[in-house]
């Protein structure tokens, strides 16, 4: 931030002559008191003003990229305890009914650069918006890491089939995929990584129902990189007998960093 001393204002610097930038000011959070109240009323009363505020928010959101991360404390256990607290039920009833997965997926297909996309969709698609019963499973401590995370939106070749989001966690050497409905019951869907040399290497089979988590071999971990392609082919049950794809590619997407 600047330590510039106040400069002499240029001519015509009186507040009266400044342009009306209330939409930007509201989006930026500059206003308080009456000015803020007036601007909020305008959002409700003037659709054009509301659109303008929205456009500013979108523009300014680019600045979030510059915001440095600060290693976060492990609050997940505390967050879970709060979620499990039944007294919060009245708040939970305010939550909107989760949209269905089928409506959301097409809109999310373009968001391959954001790992959070897939995870958010998992949350959005959860069947009931009330906190589930406390889990008996012990929760491992969560440490926010800076290990590179790669994501891909694996787009199906056929329109109307849900995109599969893949998130690769370099630290765990594991790739997680959302539910794939890419092949019929009489075949298996096999996931391949195609690195820069163009040779496909099998990463494993996708489960017919629910998401899939695959822990990768050391060789395959080395093949996972930004720009590598993930592809799904139709293979016989239990996978390709040859070690190379034998069926058609039904979906593919490129890995990119978060």
């Amino acid at each position, binding site marked *: *931030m600047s330590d*510039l001393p*106040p*400069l002499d*204002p240029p001519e015509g*610097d*009186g*507040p009266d002559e*400044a*342009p009306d930038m209330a939409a*930007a*000011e509201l989006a*930026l*959070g*500059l206003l*308080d008191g009456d000015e803020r109240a007036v601007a909020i009323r305008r959002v409700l009363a003037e659709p054009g003003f509301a659109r303008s505020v929205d456009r500013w928010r*979108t*523009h300014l*959101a*680019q*600045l*979030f990229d510059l*915001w*440095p*991360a*600060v290693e*976060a*404390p492990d*609050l997940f256990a505390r*967050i*879970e305890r*709060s*979620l499990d607290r039944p007294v919060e039920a009245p708040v*939970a009833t305010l*939550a*909107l009914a*989760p*949209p269905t997965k089928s409506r*959301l997926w097409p*809109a*999310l297909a373009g968001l391959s*650069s*954001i*790992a*959070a*996309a897939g*995870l*958010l969709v*998992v*949350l*959005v698609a959860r*069947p009931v*918006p009330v*906190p*589930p*019963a406390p*889990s008996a499973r012990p929760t491992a401590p969560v440490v*926010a890491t*800076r290990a590179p995370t790669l994501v891909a939106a694996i787009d199906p070749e056929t329109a109307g089939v849900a995109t599969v989001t893949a998130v690769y966690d370099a630290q765990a050497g594991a790739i997680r995929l959302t539910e794939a409905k890419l092949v019929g019951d009489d075949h298996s869907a096999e996931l391949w990584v195609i690195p820069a040399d163009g040779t496909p290497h099998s990463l494993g089979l996708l489960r017919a129902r629910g998401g899939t988590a695959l822990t990768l071999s050391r060789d395959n971990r080395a093949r996972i990189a930004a720009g590598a392609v993930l592809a799904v082919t139709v293979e016989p049950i239990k996978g390709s007998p040859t070690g190379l794809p034998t069926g058609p590619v039904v979906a593919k997407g490129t890995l990119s960093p*978060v």
Partner: protein
Amino acid sequence: MRTGEEDRAAFRDLYTLTASKLFGICYRICGERQAAEDVLHDVYLTIWKRAGAYEPSRASPITWLATIARNRAIDWQRAQKVRRASPIEDAPEILDTAPLVSETMLDDEAAHLLHGCLDGLEERQRSAIRTAFFDGVTYAELAERQAVPLGTMKSWVRRGLAKLKECLDA
């Protein structure tokens, strides 16, 4: 059908992936660690409850999450009714919108546009706009920090925003 446990696992992944980013936002705006932790906790509760309200057509997921964090942190900060005359000291510096940023980090067209347009502003305008965004402060606080009359600060920023708009709309 997903079980609650699977949702929790996904939510934990989301936390692991995004907590440092969102904590950076809360910490800078709240200005103290304990408050930032409390706000971060509330932010994730909000995310859990409002995941169904997320609209992919309007914002990328991380933008949506970051916006919730910034708004929550600003709510907390303004509820304190204490003005910070200067930014907190031990928070990491925000990168400047130098050309290196556009080369290394921002391959996105929208990001290029905004940073290019910000670079076209006078330093004091750009600085005030960035401070407002990253520190979550109002006109009154900006004026106090720069030791200029409120009207002067408003005028600088409004002219800067008008110029920014002209550039963004061009």
